[in-house]
């Protein structure tokens, strides 16, 4: 009898111990999140600043969600759609990642979005601004567009540009998906704001010498140059515009620019009007984010948080909140949780709203002028606008990505 009792107690004890072990090991299994972004090439420093934002958001959640540690798996997309999509596929198939985010180049992001749709993984395009991410033919239910599309960035600024800078517009377009978006929307606004198109030059990604383009534009009679050019190409273009004295002849409207592009310039090389996604001094929350960058990442390319940092932070914050809300890591459930979410504690003065039918994040964005000053406070905010007033409506963009 005693033997049976002892055997029963020992067996029960073992079952309890093993059960606890399995429960503990299951709880400790990390949630892998893939960060696919440029660590080399035209947008390398943008990617690095973005990655810092992603890490800071993980830090804000104490490094875990649903009681499980968050494991970030980084991959360099090398600013190349083929490489980016290959790395994303590898993360999903080999590493078992179900959630991906990050990136700067729209072409790369759209390629990754295609892989995620095929594999049923959730993808947040954090810093790519082509409106294709939320457009018929490209958008899919597994993809969310954290960054504002060029539709809202350009339409939000066009009226100010026409009224204050001039109505004869010359376009310089980076010759890929994002560049085309910027010029398309500016062109669509011409009639509405009473402006006219003087000409357009499409420049390939990787162009470093713009002298011939600038000579043509300087004699075109335009009073505004509307640029949709990014990365190192944009920096070279800024420098050469100054060199060719273009700022004395016409206003320069950069439909979307980054702090990373303006900060390295000498003060006399600045003077553009720029649509930006965020500015480090715009709110107490952004100043706090900047302080964390400065203190925690002394080797970062910048000593303040850039819009790329913020967008990385926002994307990761939204994802973790959605996982928390869904109470599971099931991709479909997380998508459903994210749709319609309002993020009030978003470090900005106004909340961010995730529109369900096109998976587009909407928020308030500044339009700035970069100043000819030393130091890190180089942008003057001219005005802000709410992207929900300028992003395409359902009738303009008949999509329905809402989860069943």
């Amino acid at each position, binding site marked *: 009898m005693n033997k049976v009792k002892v055997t029963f107690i020992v067996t029960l004890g073992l079952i309890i111990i093993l059960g606890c072990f399995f429960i503990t090991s299951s709880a400790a299994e990390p949630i892998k999140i893939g960060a696919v972004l440029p660590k*080399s*090439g035209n947008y*390398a*420093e943008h990617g*690095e600043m973005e990655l810092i934002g992603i890490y800071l958001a993980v830090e804000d959640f104490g490094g875990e969600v649903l009681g499980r540690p968050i494991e970030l798996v980084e991959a360099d997309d090398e600013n190349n759609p083929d490489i980016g999509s290959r790395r994303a596929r590898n993360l999903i198939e080999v590493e078992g990642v179900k959630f991906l985010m990050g990136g700067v180049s729209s072409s790369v992001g759209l390629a990754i979005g295609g892989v995620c749709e095929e594999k049923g993984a959730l993808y947040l395009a954090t810093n790519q601004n082509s409106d294709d991410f939320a457009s018929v033919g490209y958008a899919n239910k597994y993809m969310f567009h954290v960054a504002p599309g060029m539709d809202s960035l350009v339409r939000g600024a066009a009226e100010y540009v026409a009224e204050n800078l001039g109505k004869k517009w010359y376009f310089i377009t980076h*010759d890929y998906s994002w560049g085309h978006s910027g010029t398309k929307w500016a062109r669509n606004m011409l009639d509405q704001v009473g402006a006219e198109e003087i000409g357009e*030059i*499409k*420049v*390939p990604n*990787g*162009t*470093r*010498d713009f*002298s*011939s*383009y600038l*000579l*043509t534009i*300087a*004699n075109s009679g335009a009073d505004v140059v509307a640029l949709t050019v990014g990365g*190192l190409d944009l*920096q*070279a273009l800024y*420098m*050469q515009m100054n*060199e*060719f*004295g273009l700022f004395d*002849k016409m206003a320069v409207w950069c439909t979307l620019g980054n702090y*990373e592009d303006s*900060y*390295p*310039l*000498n003060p*006399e*090389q600045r003077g553009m009007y720029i649509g930006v996604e965020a500015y480090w001094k715009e709110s107490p929350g952004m100043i706090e984010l900047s302080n964390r960058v400065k203190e925690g990442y002394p080797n970062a*390319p*910048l000593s303040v948080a850039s819009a790329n940092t913020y967008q990385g932070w926002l994307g990761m914050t939204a994802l973790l909140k959605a996982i928390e809300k869904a109470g599971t890591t099931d991709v479909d459930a997380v998508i459903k949780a994210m749709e319609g979410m309002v993020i009030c504690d978003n470090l900005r003065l106004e909340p961010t709203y995730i529109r369900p039918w096109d998976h587009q994040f909407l928020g308030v964005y500044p339009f700035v002028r970069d100043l000819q000053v030393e130091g890190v406070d180089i942008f003057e905010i001219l005005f802000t606008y709410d992207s929900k007033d300028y992003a395409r409506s359902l009738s303009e963009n008949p999509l329905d990505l809402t989860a069943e």
Partner: protein
Amino acid sequence: MNINIILVLLFNGVLLGLIYAVVSIGFSLVLGIGQVINFAHGLLFAFGAYIFWYISPIIGYWPAFIITPLIVGGMGYLIEKLVITRVYGQDPLFGLLVTLGISLAGTEIIRMIWGKLTKVVSTPGFAAGQVHFANIIYPKYRIALALISLIIILFVWWLMIRSNFGTIVKAGMTDSEMISALGHNLPVLRNRVFIIGSILAGMAGIVAAPLWGIKSEMGTDILMLAFTIALIGGLGSIKGTVIAALVIGIITSLGVLIIPRLVEAVPFILLIAVLFYKPKGLYGELTILGEVTAREK
């Protein structure tokens, strides 16, 4: 089409061509005479730009313009002594891979020392502002750089074509035994050619820095252009390199009016066309493979 614009684009093309020539000429010399596909040339170009950016505010524009190429020449001396001497006479691919490794490692060192953000060189006072002519605006600095480039090209042409040094070096590459019998030291000659190539890379970095900005990857960006120009012009041919650089400068400048989207591809299309009809380039005597074959004979 406005004739003024066409003329100014033509002028711009010539100036761009002169700058491209300085970038490519050192690469072509080392390739043609030293018989090494030196992918570290781009790294030396980048070091030229960075060192100039770093020291010019401290010691002034012209002293930095003199000292920077000498420092880069010293780096070239070390690279040649420590590494390149081991690849002479080997398959060109071996030299390419070794120098590519040096280039990648050096790029990381640049990032460690100077960070990842773009650096900007201010226009010096003597060339600030623009020239205004017939409703056309052109930066004085580009004109000054083109003149400096022209002086550099003429000096290199004199050194390699007209001076005794150039004659001995060229003879040594085709008949090393004869040169040794005459009492000249071939390894020393090769070392000097590599140093000259490095000095030219450093100068090219200084010339390019204010135009295109300074980035750790700038050497890689420029390398393909230099390689293309060297192949079009013919290995080791100064005349061929300058002509190829001018043709590419002019076509890319004027191409903006006709085919802006294809401008970046023009040098490579031209390369295919030239190599198809003249595998040795415009003024070359051997192809890269021909160099190996000649050496093996």
